[in-house]
């Protein structure tokens, strides 16, 4: 019997080529999109799962509330780990990683001299928690000696080729270390680094490592087997509340530690501040999953619609089979089986397409996702289940309809439609509405994402980021002679200004505090410190609202002057920019030798707000002042016409001042562009998958329109004989579909409005969801539907009516 079913199924597929093509193409597109998304999502969920005992590892993060609102801080004070290790018996081990600004260090081994971008100072217990496999050396005591360094296998090859480097010397910023081990990096580890140096080598003063407020350490805890983590977390919260009580009041902030599961770090930390982990975003993962389900549903609905619309063609067969003794169950099995066969063929095609497109997805997402079709039996099992699922989902209802045909009626040719004349085919229309609702939802989302991303890239940031070359200072000689270095750079006619400082837009900025003396009290506020020189405002093209820029003529500007931004005027309680002028500010400097030294100065100017961070972040209180101890970065503003010569000039001057260090530079607008990499990718993915969803939906609509035209062939013939115009007929045949699209639009718009508003909430600066987005989405959906349908409608309308009437 199965053989007979199979035969009929195959011959049917071949006989109704158009129908088979539409269904197989639709399902293939849908399934390919699904498979690619599933692979991506699966990959995103694999982070940190390779680590032995990872289920017992947690990261401590801090929910901190101050005058700027609630923030999740990935780094916590050093005493968190110390206390957990000492006072909480449920804790097996703790390890800390010191947070540092992203800064490439120069390494030298023999003749090899290279910058290495990523490395950390860590506690010696690091490898007890993260048991990375070692190629050379031993994990056990790898970080015991302050002069030891552990490097990645990649880095080892860069410096030592294929040799075993254990015991060999490696200079880090001219300071000697000896290699104690070589580990293998894992692409699914949330921390990506090339070297680790013991915390002891960082030279942290003893009193600072005892701090309860210096939030500088990523802290991990491995609990003992069977430990009650909730209880541990609750008790630890109490301890932290006690220990931080005094300064929390002083600083007007709250401290609230949480334990985050290791496997959650990658996907659930998107809004954490100062997090250096490789982070994904659960929102985007969820969005993609939803899109995958949408596309699969659209493809399945296509099948249901086409199969029921087309069921007449199979009706006679049902009648015959029933009259010779087939029962309904057998027919259901037969027709569902045919759909499963169709799904199977589509799956085969999708597997091929997935293999073809996977490299593209990998390139696009910077991933190395593989499709373990032949190596992992579970994948085969999943594909099999997917085939059956799609087959049953799409095939069950048509099978129900077909097998329910009354043999007498169909054999007499009395059934002309699965729906009585004059009745609305609710199911078919319903499914088309759902399909178009999903498509319109995707179109609206794609438009909103596109506009927001465009806005992120193009918003006036309040400064000019174009043609600014940017690089870190390197080497003692350069630090000592920064003034003359700067002057020499300015010799080139292509360079219009140079600024040296710390806190350039798009780069790391220092979050600290500022003190406002008021009524004999000293009020502390959080503030970003932008360390500047006399040319910062000029180089970045900032606008002064009131007051003046720093001036070389006024000697006190160097040590006793501050410029603040407009937000600071409000936050620090000055009311208006004018009233802020002349006010006094105090700042505890970053001088390790004299920890209690205070810089005291007057506000000499107010600059218009400018976005030195990404648009995810709200504008904060910013204080600009001169502090040469932190002259770590250089920004060179060039004239557009002379970029190449200017870069050459900078390189020449650099090599005169600090030949030991190769120069490493980028341009400010590039680093700003990179901030929105995730959004750029989201934008592209949403567009691609929206296009797929719409194409699949249109395939179905095309088929439905063809059947509608076929069914009404006689009607169209008669109307034409009676004098109907081509336009009239096209209108007649398209009208129904247009109505359905309009209904979809009504359903999709509020849903899209809600979800896109939710997404936009993440951005401090966002577009408004204008009415026109919905209009554009609606018009495009309508146009797409009309073009699809009218092709069939026009074909029917221009056909010779005599022909269609004769065939009746």
């Amino acid at each position, binding site marked *: 019997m199965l053989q*007979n079913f199979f035969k009929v199924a195959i011959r049917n597929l071949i006989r109704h080529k158009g129908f088979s093509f539409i269904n197989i193409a639709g399902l293939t597109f849908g399934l390919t999109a699904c498979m690619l998304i599933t692979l991506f999502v699966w990959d995103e969920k694999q982070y940190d799962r390779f680590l032995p005992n990872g289920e017992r590892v947690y990261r401590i993060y801090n929910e901190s509330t101050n005058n700027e609102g609630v923030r999740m801080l990935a780094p916590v004070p050093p005493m968190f780990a110390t206390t957990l290790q000492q006072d909480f018996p449920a804790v097996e081990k703790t390890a800390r990683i010191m947070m540092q600004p992203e800064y490439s260090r120069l390494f030298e081994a023999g003749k090899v001299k290279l910058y290495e971008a990523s490395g950390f100072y860590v506690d010696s217990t690091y490898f007890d928690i993260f048991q990375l496999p070692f190629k050379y050396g031993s994990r056990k005591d790898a970080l015991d000696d302050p002069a030891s360094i552990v490097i990645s296998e990649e880095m080892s090859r860069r410096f030592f080729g294929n040799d075993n480097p254990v015991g060999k010397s490696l200079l880090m910023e001219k300071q000697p270390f000896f290699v104690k081990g070589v580990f293998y990096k894992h692409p699914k580890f949330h921390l990506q680094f090339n070297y680790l140096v013991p915390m002891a080598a960082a030279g942290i003063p003893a009193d600072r490592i005892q701090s309860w407020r210096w939030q500088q350490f990523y802290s991990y805890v491995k609990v003992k087997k069977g430990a009650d983590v909730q209880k541990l977390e609750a008790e630890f919260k109490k301890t932290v509340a006690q220990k931080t009580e005094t300064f929390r009041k002083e600083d007007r902030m709250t401290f609230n530690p949480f334990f985050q599961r290791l496997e959650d770090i990658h996907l659930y930390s998107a809004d954490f501040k100062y997090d250096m982990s490789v982070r994904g975003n659960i929102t985007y993962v969820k969005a993609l999953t939803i899109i995958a389900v949408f596309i699969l549903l659209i493809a399945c609905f296509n099948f249901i619609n086409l199969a029921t619309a087309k069921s007449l063609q199979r009706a006679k067969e049902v009648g*015959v089979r029933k*009259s010779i*003794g087939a*029962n309904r169950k057998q027919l259901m099995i037969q027709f569902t089986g045919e759909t499963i066969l169709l799904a199977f063929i589509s799956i085969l095609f999708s597997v091929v397409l997935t293999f073809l497109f996977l490299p593209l997805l990998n390139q696009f997402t910077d991933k190395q996702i593989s499709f373990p079709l032949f190596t992992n039996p579970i994948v085969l099992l999943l594909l099999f289940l997917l085939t059956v699922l799609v087959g049953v989902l799409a095939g069950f209802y048509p099978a129900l309809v077909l097998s329910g045909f009354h043999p007498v009626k169909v*054999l007499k040719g009395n059934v002309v439609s699965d729906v009585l004349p004059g009745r609305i085919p609710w199911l078919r229309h319903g499914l088309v509405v759902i399909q178009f609702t999903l498509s319109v939802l995707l179109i609206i989302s794609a438009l909103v994402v596109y506009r927001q991303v465009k806005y992120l890239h193009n918003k006036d940031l309040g400064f000019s980021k174009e043609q600014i070359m940017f690089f870190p200072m390197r080497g003692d000689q350069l630090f000592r002679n920064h003034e003359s270095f700067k002057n020499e750079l300015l010799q080139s006619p292509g360079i219009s200004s140079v600024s040296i400082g710390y806190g350039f837009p798009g780069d790391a900025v220092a979050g600290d505090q500022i003190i406002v003396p008021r009524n004999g009290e000293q009020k502390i506020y959080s503030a970003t410190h932008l360390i500047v020189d006399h040319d910062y405002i000029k180089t970045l093209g900032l606008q002064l609202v009131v007051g003046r820029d720093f001036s070389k003529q006024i000697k006190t500007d160097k040590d006793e002057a501050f410029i603040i931004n407009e937000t600071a005027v409000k936050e620090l309680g000055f009311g208006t920019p004018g009233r802020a002028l002349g006010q006094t500010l105090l700042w505890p400097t970053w001088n390790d030798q004299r920890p209690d030294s205070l810089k005291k100065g007057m506000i000499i100017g107010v600059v218009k707000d400018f976005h030195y961070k990404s648009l995810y972040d709200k504008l904060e209180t910013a204080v600009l002042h001169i502090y040469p101890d932190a002259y770590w970065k250089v920004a060179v503003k060039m004239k557009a016409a002379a970029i190449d010569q200017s870069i050459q000039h900078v390189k020449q001057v650099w090599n005169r001042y600090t030949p030991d260090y190769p120069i490493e530079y980028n341009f400010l607008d590039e680093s700003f562009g990179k901030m929105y990499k995730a959004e750029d990718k989201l934008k592209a993915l949403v567009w691609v998958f929206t296009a797929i969803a719409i194409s699949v939906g249109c395939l179905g609509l095309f088929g439905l329109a063809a059947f509608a035209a076929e069914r009404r062939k006689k009607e169209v013939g008669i109307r034409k004989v009676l004098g109907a115009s081509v336009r009239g007929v096209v209108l007649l045949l398209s009208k129904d579909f247009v109505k359905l699209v309009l209904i979809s639009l009504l359903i999709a718009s509020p849903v899209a409005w809600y979800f896109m508003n939710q997404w936009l909430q993440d951005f401090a600066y966002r577009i408004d969801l204008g009415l026109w987005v919905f209009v554009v989405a609606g018009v495009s959906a309508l146009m797409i539907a009309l073009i699809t349908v009218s092709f069939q409608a026009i074909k029917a309308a221009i056909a010779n009516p005599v022909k269609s009437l004769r065939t009746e």
Partner: protein
Amino acid sequence: MIKITNLEKIYRTEEVETVALNKLSMQVAEGEFVAVMGPSGCGKSTLLNILGLLDDPDGGSFLFNGIEVSRFNERKRADLRKRNIGFVFQSFNLIDELTVFENVELPLIYLGVSTSERKSRVEAVLDKMQIMHRRNHYPQQLSGGQQQRVAVARAVVNKPKLILADEPTGNLDSSNGNEVMQLLTDLNEQGTTIVMVTHSEHDARYSHRIIRMLDGQTVLENLMV
């Protein structure tokens, strides 16, 4: 073999109620060849469909081999049908996607007959119907007479006790028509009961008895000699 008493069938649409069978009673004995005649709309086909368990009556009784079958559910009817009844239609009703052989084989598949036995039985019947040389052709490749021979072959392949023929020669020319009637006569002579609906007096003459119907009732019975 067949005994129906006061059989009723009413077709209802929203506005009209049509009585197709009006308290009809009749009997068909085993081995009989009965022709049912009457003008269009008199209820002949409805009767045939009820006899074939393709349709159910609204009232009355239908005994098939002494068993009341008018209240059988779909599954039971399908089962009874496939074991006992063969159909021959005016428009042949062959499945276009299947070859001659496969069309004839179909009832045996639903009966669960083994592959080898199916092969021999189908070949035997095709041979008998003189259509063996066309076994691998598709219905569209055959003439009308050939198609009807295939349909008859399919109707008899499972050796049914009863063959129901609905104007079996209606779509055929006279020589092909005579051939099909001869086939049916042969089958009847070998013991198969046949009930045939026809408009043709010529065809009706092949039967033992003619039942004439009007407005859902039998009005006359002629015994053929």
